[in-house]
């Protein structure tokens, strides 16, 4: 077992998570707003259109903990006389609350921790802004608020979960594209949904982050996508960087030992 796989905390309730079914998403951004309202996340005040379809918040970041992607696709007509069609994919992205969370692994202060719900949370009063988690996250989720120095991301509404409430974004979502619950149950639900969509001919439908054997041990927040992950700005096959950490430490130890030996060698010949 690698150093990263020390498992979920033993205490507490079963692991909580999100299943975001993008086939139900109407791109309303209620999740973005509800998240900001609940967590008092600052708004962007630049007031500039990105021109990237209806997405004007662009990516997850310190001030965007839920982000809705909009992808416009041309669907070439099957017969040449007909018009090309269009598809408009919408998907709400969030921190994956990885089973093997690189951000959490590398945090030197313990600001990031795994909660009793199995989620990954930054403690704002502890974070020293070292930014290590930022470079560690394979999904590009967590980021630093420049003017503040600390990092921020989705907490899966840690405070609300503590009060037995569902996260603000999931609660708001008009079509239940965002489903919150016990991860095992969500996985079962997602499997059924996938099958249903495949039966309906939605060939592009696939689950993303559902597999506990993937590079991050499965996501605590996983997705049903209708196209390749990278189309949505998601890495196709992310791996938790700390999976290779034991190997790295071994190499480093080798190099360190080599240095010491080398240093001894250059002084070979004793006193001058």
């Amino acid at each position, binding site marked *: 077992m690698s150093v990263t796989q020390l498992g979920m905390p033993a205490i507490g309730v079963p692991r909580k998570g999100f299943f975001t079914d993008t086939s139900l998403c109407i791109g309303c951004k209620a999740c973005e707003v509800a998240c900001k309202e609940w967590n008092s996340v600052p708004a962007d005040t630049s007031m500039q259109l990105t021109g990237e379809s209806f997405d004007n918040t662009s990516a997850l970041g310190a001030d965007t903990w839920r982000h809705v992607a909009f992808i416009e696709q041309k669907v070439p007509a099957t017969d040449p006389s007909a018009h090309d069609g269009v598809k408009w994919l919408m998907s709400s992205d969030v921190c994956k609350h990885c089973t093997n969370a690189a951000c959490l692994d590398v945090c030197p202060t313990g600001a990031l921790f795994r909660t009793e719900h199995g989620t990954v949370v930054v403690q704002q009063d502890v974070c020293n802004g070292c930014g*290590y988690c930022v470079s560690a996250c394979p999904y590009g989720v967590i980021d630093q608020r420049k003017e503040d120095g600390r990092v921020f991301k989705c907490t899966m509404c840690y405070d609300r979960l503590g009060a037995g409430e569902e996260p603000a974004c999931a609660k708001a979502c008009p079509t239940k594209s965002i489903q919150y619950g016990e991860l095992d149950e969500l996985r079962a639900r997602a499997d059924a949904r996938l099958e249903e969509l495949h039966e309906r001919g939605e060939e592009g439908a696939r689950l993303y982050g559902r597999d506990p054997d993937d590079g991050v041990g499965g996501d605590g927040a996983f997705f049903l996508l209708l196209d390749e992950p990278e189309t949505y700005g998601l890495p196709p096959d992310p791996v938790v960087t700390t999976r*290779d950490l034991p190997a790295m430490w071994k190499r480093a130890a080798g190099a*360190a030992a080599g240095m010491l030996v080398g240093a001894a060698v250059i002084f070979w010949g004793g006193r001058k």
Partner: protein
Amino acid sequence: MSPRRQRNEEFTSYYGRPILKQPTWHALDIAGYIFAGGLAAASSMLGAGAQHSGRPALERSAKLTALTAISASVVALVHDLGRPERFVNMLRVAKPTSPMSVGSWILSVYGPLAGASALSNLTGVLPRAGRAAGVGAAVAGSAVATYTAVLLADTAVPTWHDAHEVLPFVFAGSAAASAGGVAAALSPVVQAGPARRMAVGGAVLETVMSLKMERSGNLSTETLHQGRAGTLLRLSKACTVGGAVGLALGGRHSRLVSAVSGASVAAGSALLRFGIFEAGKASTIDPKYVVVPQRERLEAREAAAAPAVSTQAPAK
């Protein structure tokens, strides 16, 4: 994978936006920190060797270099933290999964040792303890010089992570080269033999390992050749190789050659750190360094899993 293999670099992305976040770190702080740490660490080794082999001038300059460099590196580190006032949080926990946590503990061992040995050497107070501290600093220094490679490699930054197997050796070589170079520049040529040897040996290791890293075949190595990073790394090699040759050929005879060549090797080491830093940054900006290798990996896995049937062809 062979570096010559033709890649299918066509990939979809979300408006060409990066998938990863750029490192929040500033080049001067972090590359500077790593360089200074390496310099300090290897200098401590030189200092310890010198104290035992009776090279007082080398010993003094190496120990002072170690103290100065480690102080500078801590300043850089503190400066880089978004909230320097919380540096103290670093020793809140001890996390083996966090190279930065491990590094903090290593530094907290190394720093006082390096400091004590330098102070004792300067003031002559508690000489025995000072010498013991010198040995301790040398041992701890070996960790200081190499853990930074893990620090960078243990990220999702493609260029850094892809290099995780060689990077400790690159950094070890580079640290040695810089310390050797600086000591060769600062010490009288007669005492500087080990320093020259360290500089040359380090430079060789640094160069060989860098070349290995650059030619590993990973797509992300592109970033080591292009743009700012490419320029920095080419300059680095010129300085390192030129300096090493200078030291090897003329270091023994001329203080001037020794000083110039030593500084050149050290500069090569610094440029290397900056180059690698920039390359990493570049690899987070263009999503292809994330998507293409991961997609290849995925497809290879899928092909292995279902050799006969072609699984759902991704609609491009």
